[in-house]
């Protein structure tokens, strides 16, 4: 019953699994024109298309808010569940146990993750559930019309709510100290970087946090706000230029060796990081902490792959599950034999 999305324009370009980009589209967005979230949706589509992932192999999750609505606007052929405010991590955790072969993709916002969702977010991290967790971070509540979120800058002034007196929650920082095994920050206005990070995240065997600054064109696009387009464009400093190389592809390294850092992921695919003037090693957790602190101090938006640990087992790995996905097991495998109950009765 998957809804057919009207093809707009020509069906061109087929990927390795025989699908066109149209096969990855979602329903038309009902978010505001120019919303950063729409740009991220497009990059999710592009990333999955380029990775040659069947949409049926991806499961979408979201919470509540503008960002969470966006899960309906991409990957129409993927199952999706729009859950409760801040409680998508638990929903995704339970669901992904049903079939460990699937790729989980969660979309949340700053209101969803940094307020009610902070607890579930942190616990998702410590369990290292294999899930891409995108936070479309705009510092403001959109659907309820423009209240401050917990990531809003201190001192930010919004039209109908005055000045924000509180310190912000820094999501990348929370992810890092919460033992996330993949932490990235990006800016919706930098689609190439967003796409490469999503591709790398989808191949990471663990939780992958992408804190993407995604300006709200309606309620928080004041030039001096951290989550605005103007501020983002002016202050973005990429740690590195990155590209993701799937395992199947032949790796053609075009950079000089000493300029390129290669991070191999669990499944054999790699992330190539091209240095941009600074010698940054994203597998070094203390370096990651330092760079985030520097970023706060210098009031700049450091983007890129901040931290990765590809070697930690994911949550599902810890449960010694059957090779056949749990949700395909049948009665023979699920109901113990009659004799076992007779034995048990004898023990009472």
């Amino acid at each position, binding site marked *: 019953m998957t809804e057919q999305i009207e093809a707009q324009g020509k069906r061109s370009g087929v990927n390795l699994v025989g699908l066109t980009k149209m096969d990855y589209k979602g329903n038309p967005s009902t978010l505001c024109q120019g919303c950063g979230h729409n740009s991220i949706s497009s990059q999710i589509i592009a990333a999955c298309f380029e990775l040659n992932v069947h949409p049926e192999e991806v499961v979408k999750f979201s919470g509540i808010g503008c960002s969470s609505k966006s899960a309906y606007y991409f990957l129409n052929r993927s199952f999706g569940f*729009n859950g409760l405010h801040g409680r998508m991590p638990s929903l995704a955790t339970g669901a992904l146990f049903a079939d460990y072969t699937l790729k989980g993709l969660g979309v949340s916002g700053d209101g969803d993750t940094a307020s009610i969702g902070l607890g579930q977010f942190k616990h998702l991290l410590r369990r290292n559930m294999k899930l891409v967790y995108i936070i479309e971070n705009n510092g403001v509540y959109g659907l309820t019309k423009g209240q401050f979120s917990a990531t809003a800058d201190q001192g930010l002034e919004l039209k109908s709510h005055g000045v924000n007196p509180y310190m912000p929650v820094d999501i990348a920082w929370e992810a890092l100290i919460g033992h996330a095994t993949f932490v990235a920050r990006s800016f919706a206005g930098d689609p190439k970087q967003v796409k490469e990070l999503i591709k790398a995240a989808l191949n990471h065997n663990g939780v992958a946090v992408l804190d993407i600054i995604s300006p709200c064109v309606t309620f928080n696009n004041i030039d001096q706000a951290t989550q605005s387009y103007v501020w983002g464009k002016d202050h973005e400093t990429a740690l590195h230029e990155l590209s993701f190389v799937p395992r199947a592809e032949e790796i053609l390294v075009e950079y000089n060796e000493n300029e390129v850092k290669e991070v191999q992921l669990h499944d054999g695919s790699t992330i190539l990081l091209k240095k941009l003037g600074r010698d940054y090693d994203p597998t070094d957790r203390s370096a990651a902490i330092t760079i985030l602190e520097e970023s706060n101090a210098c009031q700049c938006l450091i983007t890129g792959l901040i931290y990765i640990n590809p070697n930690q087992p994911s949550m599902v790995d810890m449960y010694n599950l059957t090779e056949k996905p749990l949700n395909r097991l049948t009665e023979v495998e*699920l109901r113990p034999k009659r004799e076992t109950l007779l034995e048990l009765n004898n023990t009472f």
Partner: protein
Amino acid sequence: MQTQSEEARKSEKRSQIINDFSITIATVNGSGSQTSNATILRSIFKMGIPVSGKNIFPSNIQGLPTWYTVRVNKEGFVAREDESDILIEMNSATFNEDLAKLKPGGVLFCDEQIHLPFERSEIFYYPMPIKEIVRQVEAPPNLRDYLANMVYVGILAQLIGIEFEKIHQALEFHFKGKSKPVNINFEVVLRAAEWVKQHLEKKDPFYLEPMEMTKGLILTDGNTAAALGAIYGGVQFASWYPITPATSLAENLQNYLPKLRKDVDTEKNTFAVIQAEDELSAIGMAIGAGWGGLRAMTSTSGPGLSLMSEYIGLGYFAEVPVVIWDVQRIGPSTGLPTRTAQGDLTFIAFLGHGDTQHIILLPGNINEVFEFGWKAFDIAEQIQTPVIILSDLDLGMNQWMGKPFEYPDSPMKRGKVLWEKDLEQLDGKWARYLDVDGDGITYRTVIGNRHPQAAYFTRGTGHDEYSRYSEDPQNWHDLLERLRKKFVTAKPLLPKPVIERMVMSEIGIISIGSTNPAIQESRHKLAQQGIKSDFMRIRAYPFVGEEKEFIESHEINYVVEMNRDGQLNQLLRIEYPELANRLRSFAYSDGLPLTAKRLFDFIQQDKE
């Protein structure tokens, strides 16, 4: 001479009270009395005598008073009694209040270190030199406090006649056959018994004699039964958060699943149990897993359900199968975590904001706990909705006699799930919320289905038959009506009430759950007074229909439940407003299991 002595023996026998008394054991929490009390209970059970044990304990790890009551009854009436015939007193702090609840002519066994005066000349008093007896046993000093409690087991056993062989068996059961602790505990028991032989003369009338009444029965607690029921129901995913009195249900899953549910060839698990960070997360995971096609469950108690209500509402509206155990404790609020009640009934029936309604199963003994444990998954998956099972602390944590658990008598019913081959046959044409069969139950697919038409977008927002967001008024109305229809479809799948009738009965008694033993005993006593009763124990909500006829057949139906507001009575009045004048509420709640006397007194006075 001989004749005379026989007559004397006969007369002595007449004054003996055999297999019909209650024992209260008063101890300090954390002193290790659980082992001793469980030993007394199980050894009496192994003697073939009907027995029950209730732990009345504080919400505390160490130091506060705790009581254990054992009811021995040759006719099988094993509800708790308020007063006891035998008091074993190990706690000076509660000496006076405990003594006040000792029946006239009762027996007091008292740790001799409790030097408290009392004026009860009619009772039988046996001091117990606990320290002295423990000192005789070679044991590590850190175990002495625990072993002290075994002393009263030995003294009681010698005086009322618990068979020592059965005590040994009970210890073996308790310590799972580990000989070291069995031997050291048994040695204390024997030494205590030996001390009795040398120093005490039996004067009290209480005796145990072996029977055959428990032959073939089992003795266990409801939380164990629930976990096993779930396992034989094929549970694949359980997420939970610790809360008294539900904790041991999940712990039993963790204990039994690895033994029963590993793939035989690969040793891989066919299940996952996750201790979540809180109840909000526990239910979120369970809903996610149920949506993903797993037999998913969680177990909690009242406060946990308050936290879970939002996700359960989503489960109802998005039509996700999941099983939720509510091992009730007394509320409102934090209430008394270690005391029992049936106070969550109306809360659960309509849990969640907006128009919601939930299927509730109401087991009344450990066999039903086991049976509903597996059946709940069949119902949840067939009706595609959360199914909530209401147990309670008494049923969940105390030891109950029961028949051996019966293997499920029907194959698993997984409901309307479409896989790849089904969608191929349908040419991909289906809609998640389209009522094809007219029974309100629609078809679903689950994740991992690779058919390109398999996917849909699940939401808690208004949706049409294709699960697209919809604000259309007609659409909303129709959807809610269809959800209501599901509950009509569900009725034939739900357990029917258990109805027991007496000849020439004049009143009806209606109840749910763990009040059953007290009600059976009251009915017996009322019948002896000439008040005969029929009894209906309701086992599911929504009501399946037979309830109406039962109510109609009596002018007065007493609705018996352990809460303040008469919640079962409320639900019956909503369902059958025209019968409201036939319903009379007996709702009483003080945190303790119902006693037969309380109900007997109420009905007898009401009848006068």
